[in-house]
């Protein structure tokens, strides 16, 4: 035991040493960048424009190239891979912290074991995140030196502390993981949970800082129209789109992390040798799916808020986003989001087979499926169709007279709210599957539940149809807020009411963990793949709506790649990156598997 622990410490020290070397290299590069920045400073001072010069006007000669490498695609893929892993390693400690706290509260060791297994998967991913971050940094400096220099001068403080924060995060993560079995019981357990909190604080701060840099490129602040920085670093960080991105990414990371550990649990379930292992990984997959759905439900609201803020900042950027070249990518996005909802619901329905009392509810599943598929079809109905002249003539215009109205946002908002409410309903059936209510007013309770869902859905329809099509645009957009609130009220009231109906309820029988078809595990894989693809697609859109600007309206992109690629080309780059990521994730899962297997060669080592 001690030997394996010292081995682990040795590995940790090696990784730490590598991290130190990487950071040292980064500082060396940073010095070089600073030297360039200092030269520019001198030039700016002689021009008597204060300490900060305007954003440089570049020519194609300002972009170094490497033979055989497309610099945009290189940065694109490295940034995307770095972000996928970063999202995963930032999200896992968030729910591991919560699961550990639940374990401490319930004193059920299964939670502690599950939390430990989740963090074990993220350890290998953590070093991959750092390696990919290094690749991204080097490729930005090599291919876009002027842009990086300009950004580094404005964000010099936050970039410096960003690098230092990695020491805090690495130290917290290693103590949290390697000290898991050492810091057990009583006061020690509280110390361990506190280290988890420090780890989360460092990780979230890192994300907020990096978000400031990329939102500055979309909605620059703290600079004049020529790009001369006024020295107010907080204004540059707290730019118009910073918080909308922060909220959306924080919630999305949790959903994404849940889906990836769900795929890990599915992988372990399908390769499990014993019934006991299958039961353990089935329980783990259920919890991972639960985390993913909890974060997925509020996500469309955060996304709608982000898009509304992009419109508010720049109508031109907003229209490019959803009315221009990127509109069809949003149709692909809608299909992928529908896939997420359908696969998460499908997993829940399959999971009802674990309890013997579920057959009371299975007859309702087909109606849930019909509504979900119907809402899904409305959700991805396009507005403007790509048509030939003949098709245009026969249709009488670019909009279909029946399907056209379903192509605008009020229809989408109504559809997604219905999908969210029905996912919550799936959950309610799942929770009820193994219980029998004993309260006398169970019929009245069920009647109130039906009334709640009926009134809620009617209100969502009223808001979407009346304000969406019969009032002006201000009301059309604003109606999305009471729609959201209606959905939240229905979900919260339904959970509260059910907790009263099932007070002192009896269980139908024991829950048979592991009694679930293999195809449910493939639904978990589908969830992880759809999430990955979706994030890659939306990452391209978020970055691409800057079009020919490095920094919108401040710094032109004059590189040979300053054009918007065709949709097919962009989708292919995103798909190649997603396949690369999946290959790396399989490697991470395999490493976690290998670390627990032992080979005992007979007669290899001498006796005694």
């Amino acid at each position, binding site marked *: 035991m001690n030997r394996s622990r010292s081995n682990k410490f040795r590995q940790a020290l090696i990784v730490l040493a590598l991290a130190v070397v990487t950071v040292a290299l980064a500082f060396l590069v940073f010095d070089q960048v600073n030297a360039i920045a200092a030269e520019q400073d001198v030039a700016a001072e002689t021009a008597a424009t204060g300490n900060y010069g305007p954003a440089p006007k570049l020519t194609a000669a300002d972009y170094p190239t490497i033979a055989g490498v497309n610099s945009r695609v290189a940065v694109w893929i490295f940034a995307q891979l770095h972000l996928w892993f970063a999202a995963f390693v930032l999200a896992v400690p968030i729910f591991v912290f919560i699961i550990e706290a639940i374990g401490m509260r319930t004193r059920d060791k299964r939670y502690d074991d599950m939390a430990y297994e989740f963090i074990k998967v993220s350890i290998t991913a953590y070093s991959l995140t750092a390696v990919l971050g290094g690749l991204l940094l080097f490729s930005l400096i090599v291919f876009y030196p002027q842009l990086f220099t300009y950004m580094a001068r404005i964000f010099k403080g936050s970039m410096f502390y960003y690098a230092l924060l990695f020491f805090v995060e690495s130290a917290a993560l290693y103590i949290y993981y390697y000290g898991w079995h050492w810091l057990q019981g009583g006061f020690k357990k509280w110390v361990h949970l506190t280290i988890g909190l420090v780890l989360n604080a460092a990780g979230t701060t890192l994300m907020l800082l990096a978000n400031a840099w990329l939102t500055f490129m979309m909605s620059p602040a703290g600079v004049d129209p020529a790009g001369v920085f006024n020295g107010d670093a907080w204004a540059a960080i707290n730019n118009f789109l910073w918080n909308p991105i922060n909220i959306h990414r924080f919630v999305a990371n949790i959903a994404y992390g849940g889906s990836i550990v769900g795929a890990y649990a599915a992988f372990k379930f399908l390769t499990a040798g014993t019934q006991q292992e299958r039961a353990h990984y089935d329980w783990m997959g259920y919890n991972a799916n639960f985390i993913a759905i909890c974060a997925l439900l509020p996500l469309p609201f955060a996304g709608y808020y982000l898009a509304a803020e992009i419109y508010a900042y720049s109508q031109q950027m907003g229209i490019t986003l959803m009315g221009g070249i990127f509109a069809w990518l949003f149709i692909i996005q809608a299909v992928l989001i529908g896939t997420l909802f359908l696969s998460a619901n499908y997993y829940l329905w399959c999971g009802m087979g674990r309890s013997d009392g579920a057959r009371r509810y299975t007859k309702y599943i087909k109606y849930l499926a019909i509504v979900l598929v119907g809402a899904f079809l409305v959700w991805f109905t396009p507005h403007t169709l790509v048509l030939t002249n003949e098709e245009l003539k026969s249709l009488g215009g670019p909009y279909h007279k029946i399907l056209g109205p379903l192509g605008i946002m009020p229809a989408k908002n109504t559809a997604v709210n219905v999908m969210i409410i029905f996912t919550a309903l799936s959950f309610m059936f799942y929770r009820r599957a193994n219980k029998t209510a004993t309260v006398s007013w169970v019929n009245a309770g069920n009647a109130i539940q039906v009334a709640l869902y009926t009134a*809620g859905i009617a209100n969502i329809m009223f808001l979407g149809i009346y304000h969406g099509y019969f009032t002006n645009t201000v009301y059309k957009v604003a109606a999305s807020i*009471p729609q959201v609130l209606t959905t939240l009220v229905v979900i919260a009231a339904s959970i509260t009411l059910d907790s009263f109906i099932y007070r002192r309820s009896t269980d139908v029988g024991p829950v048979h963990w592991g009694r679930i078809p293999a195809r449910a595990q493939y639904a978990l894989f589908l969830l992880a793949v759809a999430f990955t693809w979706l994030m890659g697609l939306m990452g391209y859109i978020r970055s691409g709506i800057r079009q020919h600007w490095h920094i919108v309206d401040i710094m032109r992109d004059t590189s040979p790649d300053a054009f918007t690629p065709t949709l097919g080309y962009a989708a292919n780059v995103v798909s190649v990156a997603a396949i690369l990521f999946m290959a790396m994730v399989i490697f991470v899962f395999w490493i976690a598997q290998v670390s627990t297997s032992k080979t005992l060669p007979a007669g290899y080592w001498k006796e005694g």
Partner: protein
Amino acid sequence: MTIKSFFLPFILALVAFAVGFLLLDLAMMNQ
């Protein structure tokens, strides 16, 4: 399941929730 035990509470609850949601709409669709 009888009319009294299901439909009466259903109708009462439906009216109550409908009024509640309409008040929510009125509160939001102005500030």
